[in-house]
């Protein structure tokens, strides 16, 4: 798709659109970063300044103490650690169970396929608040610890998602690939693992990243299940308990600093995996 090489006008237009998109997507995040470098008095300046400035002299003046404060706060670091475990396990489990189910639903023939798809989707159609009491009862009955509770209950929104997206991908994969693999003596499961999974890499990476972020950001379940076990608090819960080292009321600067810091690992994760988003289905594989 080298559409923009030929025409300089089109190319300029393309980069213009690109720049507008980047500004639109990043500006609010920049604003969070900007706010995280302001002290209470800098935050309440009118009009708001686009870089942190001293209220009197109007000189550029960064306030780093918000960052120092969050790293001095043990619960923040612990939260990052907990969130990493919870989000990673959730993603892997959802991808594993989801891709198995999706292979069956997208490529195999059996009765009851449509009902199965709808039942899986139905898992996620209630608002979280509504199912919370029921879930809490289940967690208590099974006597799970907080971390495990979060991983399992996050399946409620990640598993239907991975299953549905992957099913739509498997369905589009050419049947010939599987047939030829089978003729070559591969078992159905080998076909799945060695041929289909690599081909669906874009879908796996996409759903994996989106599930990871959903689990990383989840608040309501985490708040409920860590209410007794404070050590298991994930990032969003830890941030919501920030009491503030300097602030009189809500430590807005610290919250913004924390938001900036916890977005970085996710961005790194995307940078590592992004190549795979647009790999996958190679034209050559079909012709083989």
């Amino acid at each position: 798709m080298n559409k923009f090489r030929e025409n300089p006008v089109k190319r300029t237009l393309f980069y213009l659109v690109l720049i507008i998109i980047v500004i639109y997507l990043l500006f609010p995040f920049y604003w969070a970063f900007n706010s995280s470098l302001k002290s209470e008095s800098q935050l309440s300046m009118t009009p708001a300044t686009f870089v942190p400035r001293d209220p009197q002299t109007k000189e550029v003046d960064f306030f780093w103490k918000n960052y120092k404060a969050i790293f001095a706060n043990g619960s923040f670091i612990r939260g990052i650690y907990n969130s990493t475990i919870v989000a990673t396990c959730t993603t892997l489990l959802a991808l594993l169970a989801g891709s198995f189910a999706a292979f069956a639903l997208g490529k195999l023939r059996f009765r009851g396929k449509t009902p199965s798809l709808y039942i899986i989707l139905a898992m996620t159609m209630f608002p979280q608040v509504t199912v919370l009491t029921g879930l809490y009862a289940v967690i208590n009955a099974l006597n799970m610890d907080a971390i495990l509770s979060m991983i399992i209950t996050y399946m409620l929104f990640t598993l239907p998602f991975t299953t549905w997206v992957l099913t739509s991908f498997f369905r589009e994969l050419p049947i010939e690939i599987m047939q030829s693999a089978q003729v070559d003596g591969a078992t159905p499961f080998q076909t799945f693992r060695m041929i289909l999974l690599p081909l669906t890499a874009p879908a796996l990476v996409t759903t994996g990243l989106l599930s990871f972020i959903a689990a990383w950001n989840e608040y309501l379940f985490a708040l409920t299940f860590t209410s007794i076990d404070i050590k298991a608090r994930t990032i969003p819960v830890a941030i919501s308990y920030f009491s503030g080292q300097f602030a009189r009321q809500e430590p807005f600067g610290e919250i913004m600093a924390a938001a900036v810091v916890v977005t970085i690992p996710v961005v790194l994760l995307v940078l590592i995996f992004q190549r795979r988003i647009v790999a996958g289905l190679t034209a050559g594989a079909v012709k083989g």
Partner: protein
Amino acid sequence: MRGPSLRRPSYIEICKGGIFVSKKGMSDLAKQEEKLALKLLIPAFLILIIIAVYPLGQVFYASFTDKKFAGTEETNFVGFKNYDKLLSFTIKELPPKIDDETGKQVVDQETGKKVYKSPIYVLPRKPYLYRPINTFKLFGNKYVIGSADSKFISSLWNTMVFTVCSVLLETLLGLLVALVVNSEFKGRGAMRAVMLVPWAVITVVSAKMWEWMFEPSRIGLMNTIFEKIGLGNGNIAFLSMSKFQLPSLIAVDVWKTTPFMALLILAGLQLIPNELYEAARVDGANKVKQFFSITLPLLKPSLAVALIFRTLDALRVFDVFQVMLAQKRYSMASYNYFQLISARNMGKASAVGVIIFILIFVFAVMYIRVLGVETE
């Protein structure tokens, strides 16, 4: 152009050779395939049974009772009463207020507008007290919409407006972003990471951040900018004035979730074989034609799935309403939260949950039908 590989094989093709070629014959083969399918579904359904059956069943059951949350009160079975009360609404004509002396309709001295009787005279009081939600004029008559639970009906309306607007905008923007990111340019790898930043910001924090940006004074970014370009006096109360509330929330949601749509669409674009574009180019089809004859039709399945999950999230929208509007204006889910946590009406809250469930189901079926997605 589209080979037989891209659609589901017909029965004849299955007999000629389905996914798994067997020398023994059809029935054996089918059984083998069905067995494998069931095995593969075990993990997903096991998880589903553990975490979904009881909580979901409990919601359905509680919606037919007057159960209280975290209380010791006795629970009674009330049938459809919760639903009846939540969903009852009526439209009544408002009679004009007649002046006793002249026999004509009273006209307000100051505004010059005709005066009508108060809605409480026409709205039913039994079995529930109906409260007015809104009034409108049609063919010279004035009508009032009243409902037994006016907060719920307006939360339903808010949620619908929010869902339709934000999902539509997110889909269009997401498509644009995905198409841009899918083309070749320097730094596309970094662009893919940039694309996901809004989605990566923790939801609760992002709602707080936007609340700060929408501050009703020039502490907030929006008022600072609006005042600079000459709109407003720098003191627009975006989140208190009802005409700005929903547009503000939609703007936040579109920013936050466009990446979700864009990434799913980008993945869907990878399924479209490049040969199709090459063939179209040979045929002399321009970019716009290629988009409408190749990209869009082949994107339908991925788009449908993305739309289902986006709509599902939008219909359950909670965080932005709860954080930014508190109890000034409800979405269905934040009304649900209010009913459960503040009013402790677990029965009623469950009924709200079931109504959301049914709405989502309707949307999902609609997408699947309209966009022609196969489920079999």
